[in-house]
């Protein structure tokens, strides 16, 4: 590798990482938080078979999962201005990622809720707890544990999906890389570099996942303590 290219990579590392820390990560964290709120509510509505709302939940999941994320981004950012609704790139990305991820996580949560044996809810009733108390104290924590690996998977996928936000002018890592490529003409090295930074982020998340799983598994490990 010649010295000039090496210098470019070192120089651009910080310039790619910075939007990673200030845009990619906040975008992921904020969107995933909203997505989880949407997911838990949507899953609980279906789990409890709340009339009308269950149909709405199914409709939401059907539409969101059946259309490309990129199309959703374009509809919100480039399409909505036609109706006079103009949203800045970053909030637009948050809205789309939250709604999109929420639908996938809702399905994960629904399956996890249904995997909790019905006896757990009955036992809650029988010790005098209400539906919501049992849900909050007994069912949701157990469902969370079941859902955790799949949710982690979704989160990791989402970190990478945020690169699509470049298409609606959000200056996240991929956009920053493209800008450097535009004047340096080193696409191979730079795109590999940004790929490695994504890999770094995801490695951290993978580690966090295994730590989290260990903590959540505490009550499932058979045998004495």
């Amino acid at each position, binding site marked *: 590798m010649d010295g000039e290219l090496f210098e470019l990579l070192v120089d651009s590392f910080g310039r790619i990482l910075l939007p990673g820390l200030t845009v990619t990560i906040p975008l992921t964290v904020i969107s995933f938080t909203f997505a989880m709120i949407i997911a838990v509510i949507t899953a609980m509505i279906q789990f409890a078979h709340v009339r009308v709302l269950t149909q709405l939940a199914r409709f939401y999941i059907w539409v969101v999962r059946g259309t490309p994320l990129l199309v959703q981004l374009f509809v919100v950012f480039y399409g909505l201005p036609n109706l006079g609704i103009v949203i800045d790139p970053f909030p637009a990305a948050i809205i789309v990622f939250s709604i999109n991820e929420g639908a996938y996580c809702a399905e994960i949560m629904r399956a996890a809720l249904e995997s909790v*044996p019905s*006896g*757990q809810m*009955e*036992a*809650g*009733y*029988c*010790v*005098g*707890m*209400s539906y919501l*108390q049992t849900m909050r*104290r*007994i069912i949701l*924590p*157990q469902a969370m*544990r079941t859902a955790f690996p799949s949710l982690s998977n979704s989160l990791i996928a989402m970190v990478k999906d945020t690169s699509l936000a470049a298409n609606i002018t959000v200056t996240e890592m991929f956009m920053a890389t493209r800008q450097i490529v535009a004047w340096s003409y080193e696409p191979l090295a730079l795109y590999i570099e940004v790929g490695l930074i994504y890999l770094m982020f995801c490695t951290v998340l993978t580690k966090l996942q295994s730590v989290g799983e260990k903590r959540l598994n*505490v*009550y*499932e*490990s*058979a*045998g*004495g*303590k």
Partner: protein
Amino acid sequence: MLEVRNIRKAFGDLEVLKGVDLSVDTGEVVAILGPSGSGKTTLLRCINFLETADAGTMKFDEETFDLAHVSKRDAARLRKKTAFVFQNYNLFRNKTALQNVMEGLVIARGIPKAEAEQKAWAALEKVGLSDRADYYPSQLSGGQQQRVAIARAMATDPEIIYFDEPTSALDPELTGEVLSVMRQLAGEGMTMVVVTHEMGFARDVSNHVIFMEHGVVVEEGSSEEFFQHPKEERTRAFLRLFDEEE
């Protein structure tokens, strides 16, 4: 204290309860016997509103309820006066033994944590499991889990405890430890309704026996009468089965 009249329940075309009566006095231990599929468990589940009966009335503490149309609020209120022990324990899997016992005290009844913890310890002590307080259900044997479940049931000072085949999922060795806890409870005057296949327990501990088959009560009476002088031929045949076993 508890009086159930003409309870009916069908699952689709299958009539599981065809008009069953049950009455329990304070301090009484009632054993419900019968072959599998006779509707014993369904009876118990309907009384505690885990299933909604199709018809029937229930009188509990001088209050009368229509079992087919009981409001959620009434069901919740009544459940706080009762306790239920399940065949497969149904301990909260994400809670330790102590937390399992405390949950109904702190969350459902709003008892301060310190007081609830004391009560929970006492209950665990009673079933001989205070040394397992910090264990999760997955770390306990079936017999221990069921004893924690009994501790959870009695910690709330219920007026009555319903037992749904509490030893059916246990091997004989573990059955003994659960039955002895139940004997002790009965000795202390706890009102109990026990669906069971344990003839010995029914004979020695219960005051009153109800024998069910195909959704109706075939015979009932004091446990002495029932075991010594069964009236119905069907009852005799049923009891013979167990004599042969013993």
